[in-house]
C-alpha cells in the first residue's frame, strides 16, 4: 500500500455538520449524516478482523463486521437486515450511543489512528432504510402466544416489546405521557435526535403488532396487580429514571429555575421552542447557568442558545476530564459558544422581590481522592464564595426513578435510590411474572444499555411464558 493511502486509512471520514454560526439559530439536526460516497469510503477502512473486538463492546452484540462488509459491497438492504437482527432502533443508536466508550473503543484501527466510525455507518444504513420505507417481515408464530404488558415506551420498553412481538406474543405498551419514546421523545432535543426518527422507530415497533396505549400511567390508572387481572401473563417495567433531582439549597424554588427535565419537556415534548404557534411557553433569560456535566446538561445548554440566550455557562463541580457527557457533545457545545466554569458549585440562589432568580452564590472546589465512581471527589475550598449574575438556571444533576409503581406494588424490592432490584441476567424482579430493565434498574445510564436490558428481559419472559404454557397443558391432560 502507498504511504499516502496508509495515512488516509488512519483518518476517519469526518461527519458533515451544520456550521456552528448557523445551527445556533435553529433546531434542525446538527450532524447531517454520511453521503453514500462517504459511507463507502469509511466502510473501506474496516479491516474485517477474523476475531473482531468491537462486538464485545456492544451491549446488544451487533455483528458489526458483517454489516460493515455489506455496506462495502453496497448491499445496504442486507446491511440493515444484519443490524436489525440485534438492534430494533438503529437510527437512534447510530445517533446517540457513546460509541467512543463501546464498540469503537475496542476497534484495532483506534490503536494507530481513528477507530472505524461504526455509529455513523449504523446511522447511514438505518437512514437509508427509513428513506426507502421500512418493510416488516411477517412475524413467526410462537407456540407460547402469551400476553405481555410493557410499562414505559423508552428504549428498554420498545426493545422488550419488539422482541416479544417477534417471538409471537401479544404485547401492549402502557405509556404515561401523550407520546411514546421516553427520553428519546421528551429529553434528547430535536437537533440531536429528530423526533420524526423516533416516530419512525416507534412505528416500526407498532408494525410488529405491538399496541401502544399512551396517557396510561401505571400505578395510578392500573396497578401492576390489576394488569394481571386484565389478563396479562407477564409485565415488564421500563419506566426509566424520570424524577428530577434538585440541589436542596436555599432559593431553589425561585422563578426562572428549572429542572433540566422541565426545561427539556417544555422544549421537546410540547414544543415550547415554537411558542406561540404551540401553546406552551418557556421563559429563557439573557444569561443562563446550567448546573451539571452530563449529556442532559449539554442538551440544556445547547437548547438555551437556540432559544436566544446571550450567554450560556455550564457550571460543573469537577473538572473537564470527569465530565460524563459524550465527548462529541462537549465539542459541539464548545463550538457553539457554550462556556464552562469548572470546579464550581452553587450554594445559594438569589432572587428579586417578585421571586425571580437574579444570581447565585457559588463556591470553588478542588479535587480530592477518587470516590466509588472512580472520579476524583470535589471538595469545597473554604472562603472561596463568589456571586454570579444569572437570570435563568437549569439544574441537570441527575434523575432517579419515578416512585409511583414502587409505591403501589407489593413485594417489589427496591434499593435506597428507588431503583428496582432484579436478577442482572434475566431482569426478573422479586414478584413472579414481573420483569424490569433500563434506567429504572440501573439508574440514569444509556440508550443502548436500556435496550440490552430490554432484550435480556424479553428472552426470559419468553421462557417464562413457554414454561407457564407447558404447566397449563400438563394440568389439562
Amino acid at each position, binding site marked *: 500500500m502507498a504511504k499516502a493511502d496508509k495515512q488516509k486509512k488512519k483518518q476517519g471520514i469526518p461527519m458533515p455538520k451544520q456550521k456552528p454560526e448557523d445551527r445556533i439559530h435553529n433546531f434542525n439536526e446538527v450532524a447531517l449524516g454520511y453521503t453514500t460516497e462517504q459511507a463507502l469510503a469509511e466502510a473501506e477502512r474496516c479491516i474485517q478482523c477474523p476475531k473482531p473486538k468491537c462486538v464485545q463492546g456492544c451491549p446488544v452484540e451487533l455483528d458489526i463486521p458483517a454489516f460493515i462488509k455489506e455496506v462495502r459491497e453496497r448491499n445496504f438492504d442486507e446491511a440493515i437486515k444484519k443490524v436489525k437482527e440485534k438492534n430494533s432502533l438503529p437510527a437512534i443508536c447510530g445517533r446517540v450511543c457513546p460509541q467512543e466508550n463501546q464498540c469503537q473503543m475496542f476497534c484495532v484501527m483506534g490503536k494507530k489512528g481513528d477507530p472505524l466510525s461504526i455509529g455513523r455507518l449504523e446511522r447511514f444504513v438505518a437512514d437509508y432504510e427509513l428513506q426507502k420505507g421500512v418493510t416488516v417481515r411477517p412475524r413467526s408464530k410462537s407456540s407460547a402466544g402469551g*400476553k405481555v*404488558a410493557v410499562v414505559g415506551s423508552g428504549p428498554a420498553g420498545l426493545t422488550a416489546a419488539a422482541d416479544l412481538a417477534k417471538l409471537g406474543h*401479544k404485547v*401492549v405498551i402502557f405509556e*404515561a*405521557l*401523550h407520546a411514546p419514546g421516553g427520553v428519546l421523545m*421528551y429529553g434528547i432535543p430535536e437537533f440531536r435526535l429528530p423526533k420524526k426518527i423516533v416516530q419512525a422507530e416507534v412505528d416500526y415497533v407498532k408494525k410488529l403488532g405491538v399496541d401502544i396505549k*399512551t*396517557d*396510561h*400511567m401505571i400505578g*395510578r*390508572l*392500573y396497578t401492576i396487580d*390489576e394488569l394481571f*387481572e*386484565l*389478563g*396479562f401473563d407477564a409485565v415488564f417495567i421500563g419506566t426509566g429514571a*424520570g*424524577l*428530577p433531582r*434538585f440541589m*436542596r439549597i436555599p432559593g*431553589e*424554588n*425561585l*422563578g*426562572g429555575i*428549572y*429542572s433540566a*427535565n*422541565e426545561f427539556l*419537556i*417544555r422544549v421537546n415534548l*410540547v*414544543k415550547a421552542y415554537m*411558542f*406561540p*404557534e*404551540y*401553546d*406552551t*411557553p418557556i*421563559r429563557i433569560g439573557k444569561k443562563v447557568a446550567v448546573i451539571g456535566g452530563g449529556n442532559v446538561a449539554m442538551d440544556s445548554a445547547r437548547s438555551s442558545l437556540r432559544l436566544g440566550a446571550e450567554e450560556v455557562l455550564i457550571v460543573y463541580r469537577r473538572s473537564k476530564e470527569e465530565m460524563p457527557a459524550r465527548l462529541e457533545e462537549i465539542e459541539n457545545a464548545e463550538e457553539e459558544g457554550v462556556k464552562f466554569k469548572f470546579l464550581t458549585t452553587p450554594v445559594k440562589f438569589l432572587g428579586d422581590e*417578585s*421571586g*425571580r432568580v437574579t444570581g447565585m452564590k457559588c463556591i470553588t472546589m478542588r479535587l480530592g481522592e477518587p470516590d466509588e465512581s472512580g472520579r476524583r471527589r470535589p471538595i469545597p475550598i473554604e472562603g472561596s464564595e463568589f456571586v454570579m449574575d444569572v437570570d435563568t438556571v437549569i439544574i441537570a444533576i441527575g434523575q432517579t426513578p*419515578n*416512585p*409511583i409503581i414502587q409505591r403501589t406494588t407489593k413485594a417489589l424490592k427496591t434499593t435506597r435510590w428507588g431503583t428496582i432490584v432484579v436478577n442482572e441476567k434475566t431482569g426478573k424482579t422479586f414478584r413472579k411474572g414481573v420483569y424490569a430493565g433500563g434506567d429504572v434498574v440501573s439508574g440514569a445510564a444509556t440508550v443502548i444499555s436500556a435496550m440490552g436490558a430490554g432484550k435480556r428481559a424479553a428472552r426470559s419472559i419468553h421462557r417464562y411464558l413457554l414454561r407457564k404454557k407447558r404447566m397449563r397443558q400438563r394440568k389439562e391432560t
Partner: protein
Amino acid sequence: MKGREKDLSSKLRSELLSFGKKKENALPLYGTEECAKRSMKAMYEVLKKLELAPKIKLLKINAPEIARKAKAGQFVIFRIDEKGERIPLTIVERDPQEGTITLIFQEVGLSTMKLGALETGDEIMNVTGPLGNPTEIKHYGLVAVVCGGTGTAVSYPIAKALKEAGNQVVSIIGARTKELLILEDEMRNISDELYISTDDGSKGHKGFVSDVLKMLIEKGYRFDVVYAIGPTLMMKATVNVTRPYSIKTIVSLNPIMVDGMGMCGACRVTVGGETKFACLDGPEFDGHLVDFDELIKRLRVYLLEEKQAVELHEKSGEIKRG
C-alpha cells in the same frame, strides 16, 4: 340566566350525586371485544356541555378507564390538540357505568378558553388520569369545607365523600359576585349547614369565605378539620384564620404543572421547609405548613407569555373573549 340555572341544578344534582356510589365493574379482559367497546371507542369525546356561570363551564367526557378508577381529590391532565399545553383539572364527577368523567373549569387563559369553546361531539386529544393522591376520607366529626370560586367544584366530591363517611359537614362557598356562585344546591344537599359569601355582598355574607369561617369559629363551632380549596390567596387567608386555633387545615394546591406525574418539578411547593411535588405527594397538604407566598410567585412566572398567547389566538379568531 336565572331560569336556566335552576333547570340546570336539578339535572346536575342527579348526576353529581352519583359520585362514588355506583359499584365498580369487574375489569374487562384486555384485547376482548367488551374491553374494546367500553374503552377504546371515541376517546375523550365531549358528551355534554353546560355553562354554570359566566366563564365557568362543565364538560362531561367519555373516559371509561379513568371513570373506573378515579377517586375524590384526583385530577386529570388534558391536552386539547397537537399544539396544546398540558393542563390539570380536577375530576369533579365520575360514572363508571356510563364511562364518563365530569370537569368544571373557569376560563382564565388560552387553554381553558379553547376547552370552553368545544361543543358536544368534539374530541379532546389527550386526557391522562387519574393523577395525584385521593383525598384521605375518614370520620373526623365536625368538618368545615371552605371553597372559593371554581374551588367549589373541586371541593364537591370531597365534601360528599366526607358526608358519606359520617362527618357533619358545614360548607362555606363564595365568589366575587352572585352570578359566579356555582353548585349551591348541590353543596346544600350534602351539607348539614351551608353558608354563602360574596365579595360585593350581592348574596349571603359580604366579604370572604375565610371571614365566615372565622365568625363560625368565634361563635363556638369546634371543627375537627377544615378543608380550604380555591384561589391561592383564599387558601392562605383561611389557614391564617385556623392557625391561632390549631385546627387541622387541608388545602388542595394548584401550582403550574406540566406532566402531572413527577417528571418535571414545575409543581414543586415548599411544605414544612421541604420541597414536595404537588402531583406526586399532593395535591392536598397540611395548610399550616405550606409556603403560600412562594406558591403565589411561582404561579405568576408565565404571566407575560399567557397574555401574549391569548392575544394572538384572539386575533386569529380561534377563541373569543366571552
